[in-house]
């Protein structure tokens, strides 16, 4: 029996509440984090959907970017959706001037790759490692992954474009499982956090 993992949701801007609900449903103790010191007490972190430029600016402004990078480098499990995926990319294909990322996945992402809001769509997505029915993919002005490095595991594609990836303890999806009520992707992430916790509780 492991302790209930504590998972933070980066709460600078975006659909924080939906991630808190999904994480709690998947068995984690979920809490919003907005300050550098709040990063100390978490076993995992979700970077939510939102506006990647806004979240990136606020992270720099409030001194979160450097500690976030350090924690991710030290192996903190992180899951990013949509804007969160962009923030976890080592490289953005078309960054706005000064747009910084946390990094963690050796990939290049293209922002708003699927188009503007009128092109936002829903489609079923088969995600490697998630059994049963396909996941309901909600894609909102969504990015896709242009290319990945050798260490990155591609978990899902939509019409030939990479939309879910994992590298070690870092997970990212172009779509928003937090908007669907299907918590299997969050459960996968909670399992990743638990696996990381296990050695410590031995």
């Amino acid at each position: 029996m492991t302790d209930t993992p504590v998972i933070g949701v980066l709460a600078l801007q975006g659909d924080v509440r939906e991630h808190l609900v999904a994480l709690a449903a998947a068995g984690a103790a979920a809490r919003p984090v907005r300050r550098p010191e709040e990063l100390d007490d978490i076993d995992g972190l979700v970077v939510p959907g939102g506006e990647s430029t806004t979240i990136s600016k606020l992270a720099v402004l409030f001194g979160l970017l450097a500690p976030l990078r350090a924690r991710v480098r030290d192996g903190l499990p992180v899951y990013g959706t949509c804007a969160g995926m962009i923030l976890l990319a080592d490289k953005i294909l078309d960054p706005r001037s000064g747009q910084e990322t946390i990094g963690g996945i050796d990939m290049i992402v293209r922002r708003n790759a699927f188009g503007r809001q009128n092109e936002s769509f829903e489609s079923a997505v088969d995600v490697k490692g998630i059994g049963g029915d396909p996941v309901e993919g909600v894609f909102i002005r969504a990015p896709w992954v242009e290319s990945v490095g050798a260490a990155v595991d591609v978990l899902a594609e939509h019409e030939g474009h990479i939309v879910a990836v994992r590298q070690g303890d870092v997970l990212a999806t172009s779509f928003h499982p937090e908007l669907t009520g299907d918590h299997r992707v969050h459960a996968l992430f909670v399992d990743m956090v638990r696996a990381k916790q296990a050695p410590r509780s031995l």
Partner: protein
Amino acid sequence: MSSTPPSTPKTAEDTAVGTARVKRGMAEQLKGGVIMDVVTPEQAKIAEDAGAVAVMALERVPADIRKDGGVARMSDPDMIEGIIEAVSIPVMAKSRIGHFVEAQVLQSLGVDYIDESEVLTPADEVNHSDKFAFTTPFVCGATNLGEALRRIAEGAAMIRSKGEAGTGNVVEAVRHLRQIKNEIARLRGFDNNELYAAAKDLRAPYELVKEVAELGKLPVVLFSAGGVATPADAALMRQLGAEGVFVGSGIFKSGDPAKRAAAIVKATTFYDDPKIVADASRNLGEAMVGINCDTLPESERYANRGW
């Protein structure tokens, strides 16, 4: 155009655009953020650099619409396209209430959200536009819960308080937000028998009233708009329960727009931390000159437009 909202596809071969989840979900991504009125591509860039989550493209900010008078309409498509080109954040634009052709034009331009707005002169004094007929999602203003639910019943995917745009006076936004929150809280205490009468009183569909009673919130994102001029105003609206704020004239009618815009963004994120709101409030230069709402004649109160 059909008025039946598309539903969720079941296989990877099917994709569906314009679903309720995609429309409402878009607004969920804006939460905790500031949406700023801009009238030029240059202003849009200033807003984006300051951390705005979206911009509202319009020809004149509400304060100037007030000053100039006359009929206020949808903006020039060239101007809207110029703003779409200038920034990577979502771009919203306003149609007149009930002017579904202006809304069709905005959709064809590729705006990300349409604001069916009382700030423009209404085109129809009975009907709002059928918002299910569009792929582009809509945000609408409301002064109370019944009005919010009528707009949602017509397909609105996001609600904002009306406030009193172009006044720099937050009093009406506070009134509307408190009204909506209080009416939701009251519904929470009702049993099933009472919800039917409540729906009648609210002049809103029973199913939506029941959903709100169960959720304890609107089924869509609720922002504040109409009169926010300072970081403290934005934080106030957040503490009162707004999930984000629209700032209209407050930024580009002030002395130092870039600085004020960034300050309002900070205060919106850390709305519950008075130290950060205090820091954000320092040295911002002149705020827009405000208007006392109780000296506004009824005919100049935009919040009375829409029903």
